[in-house]
């Protein structure tokens, strides 16, 4: 019940395309859903995050869509660029401040954007 299932494992898109990465969870106690971007040889960096009280959040070219009833959320990258080539991890956590619960990470999606 603590798992976060992420797909696809890898993704190749042309420059300008819109890659979509999907995640699903079972634990209804999760109330914070961050996405991390990791470049080769670097640590994961927080990209964007959403709480379940909204269905969509945009930050620049990155958009999270959230479907609470389906317990699914996805990352869309608009106008993708070769510099977006990285591994993306979705994650979920119950409790934001104080009542901390450990973050559960998805398995990761390796994105390659071809020029």
């Amino acid at each position: 019940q603590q798992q976060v299932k992420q797909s696809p494992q890898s993704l190749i898109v042309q420059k300008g395309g819109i890659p979509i990465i999907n995640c699903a969870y079972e634990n209804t106690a999760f109330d914070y859903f961050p996405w991390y971007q990791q470049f080769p040889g670097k640590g994961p960096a927080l990209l964007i995050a959403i709480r379940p009280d909204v269905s969509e959040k945009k930050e620049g070219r990155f958009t999270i869509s959230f479907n609470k009833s389906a317990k699914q959320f996805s990352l869309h990258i608009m106008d993708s660029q070769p510099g977006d080539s990285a591994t993306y991890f979705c994650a979920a956590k119950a409790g934001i401040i104080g009542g901390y619960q450990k973050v559960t990470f998805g398995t990761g999606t390796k994105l390659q954007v071809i020029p």
Partner: protein
Amino acid sequence: SAVISQKPSRDICQRGTSLTIQCQVDSQVTMMFWYRQQPGQSLTLIATANQGSEATYESGFVIDKFPISRPNLTFSTLTVSNMSPEDSSIYLCSALTSGGTQYFGPGTRLLVL
């Protein structure tokens, strides 16, 4: 935000030896963690580093193998003891700010021969 640095960035060690990894955060954080990541894989939590007390270990990780210290709010160390080739991995320090955001360090790439 929080900027996390780790030392060393990489190391090659002989089996049977120990390596201590240092993690420094540029601001006070509420919680610090240590993760392990195999190349191309997801992140596995080793333990939560508790200030002034024993770390809280996840299933499959023990204090004798991975002793952890956190003497203050911004610094922690992870020791990988009696290393074997199976310990070859990337070790990541992470910190949680009071605002609830979790940050990661650049990682320490360890190769055990």
